[in-house]
C-alpha cells in the first residue's frame, strides 16, 4: 500500500469538509464539516506515523481527538445560545456585530 494513497484519501476528506464549511449556511452543518476536516487531519497524522513506524502520529491523533471533543462541546453550546436568542441557525443572519445597521431593525426582525 502506497503512503500517498492514504494521504490522498485524507486530502479528499479534508477538501470535502472545506466545501461543507464554505457552502452551508446552517451552523450545525458547518460544525459537522469542521469535524470531518479534523478527522482527515488525524488520518494524515496516523498515516505518517505508520510510514515511519513511529508512535508520534498516533499520539498526535489523541491530541486532535481531545481538541475536537472540547471544540464541539463549546461550539454546540454556542449554537444553542444563538438559536435561543435569534431563533435561526442561518450564519448570514447573525450580523449584530456588523457596522452601519439600525439596531431597531434587528429587534423588529
Amino acid at each position, binding site marked *: 500500500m502506497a503512503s500517498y494513497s492514504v494521504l490522498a*484519501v485524507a*486530502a479528499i476528506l479534508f477538501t470535502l469538509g472545506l466545501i461543507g464549511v464554505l*457552502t452551508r449556511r446552517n451552523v450545525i452543518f458547518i460544525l459537522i464539516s469542521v469535524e470531518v476536516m479534523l478527522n482527515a487531519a488525524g488520518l494524515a497524522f496516523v498515516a505518517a506515523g505508520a510510514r515511519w513506524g513511529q508512535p508520534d502520529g498516533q499520539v498526535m*491523533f489523541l*491530541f486532535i481527538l481531545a481538541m475536537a471533543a472540547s471544540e464541539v462541546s463549546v461550539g454546540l453550546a454556542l449554537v444553542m445560545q444563538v438559536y435561543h436568542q435569534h431563533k435561526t441557525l442561518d450564519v448570514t443572519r447573525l450580523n449584530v456585530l456588523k457596522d452601519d445597521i439600525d439596531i431597531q431593525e434587528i429587534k423588529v426582525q
Partner: protein
Amino acid sequence: MNYLFYISSVVAIVATIMVITRYHPVHALLYLVVSFLAVSMIFLSLGAPFVAILEIILYAGAIIVLFIFVVMMLNIGSEAAAQEKQWIKTQTWAGPTILTAILLAELLVLMIRGDSTTITDQSVPIKQISFSLYKEYIIAVELVGFLLMAGIVGAAHIGRHKKRYLHRFLREKEERESVKL
C-alpha cells in the same frame, strides 16, 4: 489488506459527500457515523488498532451523540430541511466547490508525482504509544487536560440560559409599551 483499504476509503469519501449534501441534519449525522467507521477501517489497515477503536468510541460514539442531542433539543425537523433546500442555491456552492477542487487536484498531483515509497506494514505496538505519550509528550497531555477542563466549563457557562432581569422602572415602561402596541 490492500483492497480492504481501497474499499473503505471509497466508502469514507462517498459517505462524506452524502454528509455535506444532505438537507436533514439527522440524515447527515447518520452518514457521518458511516464515514467515521470507514476511516476507522483505514486506521486498522494502517496497523493502528488502538486509534481505530478510539475513533469508533469517541467520534462515532460521543461526538455524534452530542450532535444528536443538540438537534433534538433545537427540535428542527422537516421545516429545517425545506429551509436548507432554499438556502443552498447553485450559484452559492458552485464557486467554492470549483476552487477547492482545483486545490485538491494540485495536492493530488504533488502527492502522486512525489516520492512513492510504500508503507511498511509494521504496526506500532500500543506499549510504545503509551511510553511516548507519558514520556516525551507528558506536558502536552497535561495541557490537553487543561483544554478539556476549559471546554467543560465554557460549555456549561455558555449553554446556561440566563434570565433576563430588568429594573422595575424598565419593566413598567415595557409593559406600558406592550399595552400601547
